[in-house]
């Protein structure tokens, strides 16, 4: 067997590079790599030529220059004298804010709708199906614009709250929903509030510790400790006691009407509210379908088997159905979160200043640094989605069926 291969190796022909399976894959990869390098070289030389012609260069110095524009909704200190870098950071925080709040609201609505789609009630089932189909089959951009127009057109203007007998009134004197945006009470943290918050966090950790202890007792000593009421007690009692011991350090600042507008409190512009709401109900329609599919995927035999073991309905749900359904629901759920985050870039259509609006919008237009801005923008979204896929991989490995 050795002599033919040896003789073939001696008489190596060029056609073997294409026809011999031993070398062919190297040839193809070499050609692919060569083509790729040539493509990049071609694009790069075009870029260099174009930049030279336009008298430009690639530089990130513009990030340190004053931005010169204002951002009306921000989580950190910012004014028009701040740098483009800081404007981008404000945008990033705004993106993260709307993405996180959107994911929470979308999950809540999506789970409720998904469960209701399986309800006994025919009318509810049909209404939920109509909701899901309508929202899934119309572009999210249209929903964002519709909800913005609805909020602006239907909700009262701040001036309607004025006078002895106003057209509109605040909810519990604390919340005002206007066509310009929503006003909420704002907590003011005074001296000593840090201790109250620390107590709160500590009691939440305490709840988890207690539950772990109770589980350990159940498995090792066979004693069934109460879970629900001790958890509720741990949640509320220490923080309330500490709140009064420290002399009520957290107070609410309520929005109040002064002149033609509201002052104080937290002001959420209607661009933010409509974007948040539209993204949530759009994504919720997809999440509802995932939830429904996940619950349906757990076979009825599982529920019946658990019931025949004598488990109560609550425990059947917690111990048998949910663990199996969640394994199916969570991966698509996380990719819906990713979609929501990417769709939040549509903020630019309603004027909410997320990172696409600051870095990819005004900064890009003012400085003309298109390549640099778009590249940074892409890297930001790429980083987020890679982080989310990393989380998903960890989860998938954790819940993977462990086979022998």
């Amino acid at each position: 067997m050795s002599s033919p291969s040896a003789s073939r190796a001696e008489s190596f022909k060029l056609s073997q590079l294409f026809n011999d399976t031993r070398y062919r894959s190297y040839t193809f990869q070499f050609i692919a790599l060569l083509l790729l390098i040539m493509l990049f070289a071609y694009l790069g030389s075009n870029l260099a030529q174009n930049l030279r012609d336009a008298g430009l260069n690639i530089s990130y110095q513009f990030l340190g220059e004053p931005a010169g524009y204002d951002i009306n909704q921000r989580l950190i200190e910012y004014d028009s004298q701040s740098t483009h870098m800081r404007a981008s950071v404000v945008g990033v925080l705004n993106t993260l804010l709307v993405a996180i709040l959107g994911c929470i609201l979308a999950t809540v609505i999506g789970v409720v709708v998904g469960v209701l789609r399986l309800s006994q009630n025919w009318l509810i089932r049909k209404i939920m199906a109509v909701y899901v189909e309508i929202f899934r089959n119309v572009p999210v951009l249209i929903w964002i614009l519709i909800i913005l127009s609805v909020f602006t057109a239907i909700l009262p203007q701040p001036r309607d709250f004025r006078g002895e007998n106003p057209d509109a009134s605040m909810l519990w004197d604390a919340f005002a929903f206007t066509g310009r945006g929503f006003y909420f009470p704002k907590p003011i943290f005074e001296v000593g509030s840090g201790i109250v918050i620390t107590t709160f966090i500590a009691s939440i950790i305490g709840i988890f510790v207690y539950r772990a202890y109770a589980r350990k007792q159940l498995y090792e000593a066979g004693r069934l400790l109460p879970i629900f009421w001790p958890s509720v007690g741990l949640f509320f009692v220490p923080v309330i006691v500490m709140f009064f011991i420290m002399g009520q350090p957290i107070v609410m600042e309520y929005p109040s009407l002064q002149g033609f507008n509201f002052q104080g409190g937290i002001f959420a512009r209607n661009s933010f509210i409509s974007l948040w709401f539209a993204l949530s109900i759009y994504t919720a329609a997809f999440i509802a379908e995932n939830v429904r599919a996940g619950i349906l995927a757990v076979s009825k035999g599982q529920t019946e088997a658990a019931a025949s073991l004598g488990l109560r309905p609550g425990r059947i749900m917690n111990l048998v159905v949910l663990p199996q359904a969640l394994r199916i629901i969570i991966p698509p759920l996380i990719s819906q979160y990713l979609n929501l985050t990417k769709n939040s870039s549509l903020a630019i259509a309603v004027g909410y200043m997320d990172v696409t609006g600051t870095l990819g919008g005004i900064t890009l237009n003012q400085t003309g640094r298109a390549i640099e801005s778009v590249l940074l923008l892409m890297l930001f979204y790429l980083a987020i989605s890679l982080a989310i896929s990393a989380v998903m991989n960890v989860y998938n490995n954790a819940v993977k069926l462990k086979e022998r």
Partner: protein
Amino acid sequence: MSKSELAFVRHEILPEQAPPVTEAGIVKWLRDNLFPGPVNTVLTLVAIYFLFKLLSGAMPWFWNGVWTASSLSECREILDGATGGCFSVLTERWNQLLFGFKYPSEAYWRPTLAFALLLVSIAPVLFSKLPRKLLILTLLYPFIAFWLIWGGTILTPLMILLGFAAGYVAFHRTEAKGFGTAALFGVAVTVLVWWLGSYISAAAPNVVALTPVPSRDMGGFMLNMILGTVCVSLSLPFGILLALGRQSDMPIIKWICVIFIEFIRGVPLITLLFVANVVLAYFLPPGTSFDLILRVIIMITMFASAYIAEVVRGGLAALPRGQYEAANSLGLDYAQSMRLIILPQALKISIPGIVNVAVGLFKDTTLVSVISMFDLVGMIRGPILASTEWNGIYWELWGFAVVLFFIVCYSISQYSQWLERQLQRDHR
């Protein structure tokens, strides 16, 4: 013991009675489906109340709708304070909504005809029971549609078609020498014919010519349809190639595909549209400028092919290993085994996923309004809402957009579900 001692003996069978009224018919249905328990009763009543409020608000709005006014103020005069929709914005701006505001009005029949032909030529692809000969129309359709929508001489699409045909013939003749050689030869012949053809069509610009319409004049729902169909059909072959590349044993090719797919899937479409709008021009040879719609088509196609690649990869991974091994054991080479054994099965599995990507992509074509192209959403936000006649009208226009997109996307997704059922039957 005589019979008379018994108190009562029935001699004849009783007639059948109807079931209790609560256990049959509509009452049973109502009890089971609307009022099975206290919680559900409350839910039903609340739902009925909201439906009633919604309908009682919306019905007069439809009934009193004004279809003939020429501006919002005139429409409000006609309504005279009553609730009613100003649907006249739809009738008055109908052509703008569908074709944009620059497309020559005497040529509206061309995109309309192209749309009708689209329905006819896509039917044999969707429904396998239709006569297979219609597929010829499907193959010719891209060239007819290009000629109809963009206009110009018919020689341009004809030469492109001729190039493809010549390439196919060349490929077919040399196929015995191996797939790679034949493909290379076919591509060479195609390019040669295109190169020659470009001179011919440039020399005779008036042979069977329609008025040429530049790309920047496309708009309205037509633009959404163009972008959707072109990008979906272009992204299918690229997506399949990327998926095969990602499954490949060759590390360099695999990594090129992985990086491309993950990069595209990781960024929002809007950033890619920014690239098309402001960045792409820097990477082209100085002096070349090709129009925005083409640049957008390139970027959306890249976007869609990355997603389709992932769907096809799922299909490839779902095939049992035995299929790959069987193909190898028959002595088929890579191209043959993919073409004859693997891809037909893998694509069949991934059809529902591909349709989902297509629906998502069609919805995403509205994003081009952000880079100031006038698709349906761009038309509504721009020229129509900004005009003095119709400033301040929302429900009618957005409702129209919702209805248009819903009809298209819902029918595509219903088709996909139908097809899934059909395919399931095959597997049984």
